[in-house]
């Protein structure tokens, strides 16, 4: 296929991914609203041990679950996998069309990052009882891709010489992977905060916290590596490994904030809500670095390619 055809195909696949993620979200949401209530005995024990003691609501008599609800959930899961496949194929065809790593500008970066986030979710839900995180990951992925297509879109093409480097493969790939993990951690942390104690169809607070922690613990070294390899690249490209360029400043702030989260967890008394809030602050820093710095501040990292 010619590069132009591949580029068009890539655009169509990304659109398909948006629709499929939306479908996944709806499927999950239907099962959430009408499906079986999960048991939360274990969680209640955890609450009395350490969590903030919101008043436990009287366990309401569970409504009869709709018989079709599990099917809706199944459709949701299937749509999520299909959306993932479309997202992955979209990134792959873009890479083939431009004959380089497909994360050379902000549009491509965001598409790849959401692909990473959905990948992380799909792997997680195999091991942890957090399938319904999917409803929220689905929304985030659909909105994120929509934003990428509407606001950040750039025609497929070569990158400026500074970006034409094997460091893209190293540095940006690490940033994409870490961001994908952090997104899932952020969604879990946000859900932790909005979810009340007590019975609910949502994953239990303990599971949400465990997932958020798990994901951040994996992401943090990768993010550290992304920052360090960025410094190595800057040393090659600009003659200094650290120059407090706005992008670097915010990568540093993000790193410090996640380190603060890990310390907060490691110190007694900061489990649960407080630690989750710290992790969300860190996540906000990550997002600001991605969107805010590129669009509002600028600096040497002007690869954003956003008009």
């Amino acid at each position: 296929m010619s590069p132009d055809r591949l580029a068009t195909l890539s655009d169509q696949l990304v659109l398909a991914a948006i629709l499929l993620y939306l479908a996944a979200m709806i499927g999950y949401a239907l099962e959430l609203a009408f499906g079986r209530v999960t048991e939360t005995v274990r969680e209640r024990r955890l609450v009395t041990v350490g969590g903030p003691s919101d008043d436990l609501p009287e366990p309401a008599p569970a409504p009869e679950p709709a018989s079709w609800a599990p099917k809706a959930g199944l459709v949701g899961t299937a749509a999520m996998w299909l959306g993932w496949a479309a997202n992955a194929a979209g990134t792959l065809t873009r890479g083939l069309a431009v004959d380089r790593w497909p994360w050379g500008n902000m549009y491509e970066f965001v598409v790849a990052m959401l692909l990473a986030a959905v990948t992380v979710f799909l792997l997680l839900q195999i091991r942890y009882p957090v399938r319904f995180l999917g409803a929220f990951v689905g929304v985030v992925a659909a909105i994120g891709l929509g934003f990428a297509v509407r606001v950040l879109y750039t025609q497929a093409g070569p990158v400026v010489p500074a970006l034409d480097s094997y460091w893209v493969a190293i540095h940006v790939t690490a940033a994409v992977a870490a961001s994908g993990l952090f997104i899932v951690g952020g969604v879990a942390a946000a859900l932790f905060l909005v979810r009340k104690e007590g019975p609910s169809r949502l994953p239990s607070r303990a599971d949400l916290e465990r997932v958020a922690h798990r994901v951040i613990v994996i992401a943090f070294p990768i993010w550290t590596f992304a920052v360090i390899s960025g410094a190595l690249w800057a040393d090659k490209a600009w003659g200094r490994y650290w120059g407090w360029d706005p992008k670097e400043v915010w990568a540093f702030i993000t790193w410090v904030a996640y380190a603060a989260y890990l310390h907060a967890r490691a110190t007694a008394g900061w489990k649960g809500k407080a630690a989750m809030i710290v992790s969300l602050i860190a996540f906000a820093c990550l997002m600001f670095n991605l969107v805010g710095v590129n669009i509002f501040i600028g600096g040497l990292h002007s690869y954003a390619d956003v008009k």
Partner: protein
Amino acid sequence: MTLTDEEKTTGSGPAGLGVVGWLRWGWRVLTSMRTALILLFLLALASVPGSLYPQRGVDPGAVARYFQNDPTKAEWLDRFSLFDVFTSPWFAAIYLLLFLSLIGCVLPRTTVHLKEMRRTPPPAPRNLSRLPHHADIEGDLASAEAYLRSKRWRVTTGDGWVSAEKGHLRETGNLLFHVALLVLLVAVGVGGLFGYRGNVLVVEGDGFANTVAAYDRYLPGSQVSPEDLQPFSFTLKDFQATYIGPGHEKQGQPLDYYAKLAVQDSPTAPEREFTLRVNEPLEADGALTYLIGHGYAPTFRITGGDGKVAFEGAVPCLVNDTSTYESECVIKVPDAAPEQLAFLGRFLPSTVPSGTEWLSIFPGAANPTVQIWPFKGDLGLDAGVPQSVYDLGGHQNLKPLGQMSASPKPMAVGDVVDLPEGAGKIEFTGVKEWITLQTTYDPGRFPALLASGAAILGLLLSLLIHRRRVWVRVRDGGVTVGGLTRTEGGDFGEEFAELTKALEHHARAEVKDVS
């Protein structure tokens, strides 16, 4: 640094706390986890203004513009070092406190850890079935011990029990990580003191020798003297750039550029060819030279009113617009007689007419022209006031020559224009290109790299390894295995299940061997 303050306040402290008591109290507060957390947050918070306000170390021009646009506000910002956040006293105060805290944290933990490493695992608790992980299996103590040792557990045995422990690498990694951060800070400091940075603009055909005088901007560390500069030199033979052609959304975006240099690593060394590209700096004796910008330098021959050639050479133009490389130049001709001359120029690499004006539509020099606005009078170069070569501003003694047009007809290469009032003539003789280079020497960069690598390694160990213990006790006929992890996270449950299976398997295999 806060110690002297603390000494003074001794009198008002809680009863019974002497100087030593206060110092100890201060140290304890400083090295507590809570303080470390607060300092971490403060550090993040303190770097925020560094990204919102222009920084002198990054973009001095933007700071100057800020002062021009809003002098009062700029002065206030400057009073709080908000244009130099990362070298400001308050930023330094935070990170020095943090690193003091880090030292105070790492030292005692290292001694504790060394002791821990030498200690044998504790004896098995009486009742293993109270542990979070436990199982009754078939087997015997001897085979369990042998198996655990073969899997590199630290093992001790007692009367009727085996005790094993694993995962000290977690704390080792954690200490390694925190120490690496300290080393990183030191390496950055060393680079700042013993390194230097210089910027220079070089036109095709010209040379550069690494001396302080040759730089347009030179920023040495405080421990660097001019004799320390590596004595390399080079000539810029050629510069080439290619751009995305018409028809693409990104028309005019550079595809590749490179500069061909003839380099001498020292005055006596043989000449070597080097192709300088973005991401591929020139290395000479530990100093690295980077290609960071480029532009056009049209060449002119200018004759004064007296008929003598007063100027001949290239004039580097500043780029106004990187998508078209429309550039601005200033030509000062102090040698022109009877009156000094000056010109403003507008260089258009790919010129097309547009109404009554002319535009550049592409960065490549497909149809290079210059528009010229001539002036005559006194350039004031003798006054001794330093002037920018890129600026005619502030020359009250210059008068426009003839009728000033908003968009004069551009000159093509080879064109000659006679100046009004018999002031002389100007000839556009050709087009060269210039590049801007940055040379850096930073003896801290390699130690910083090593420290970063160590930090990642330490981080991985400290986050992925878990400290865990297992005990085996005989109990009528079979044995009980109990397990405990001292750090949360991980899936010790799974590992424990596998371990018990393996222990049984191993015991059975040994029985077979014996029989």
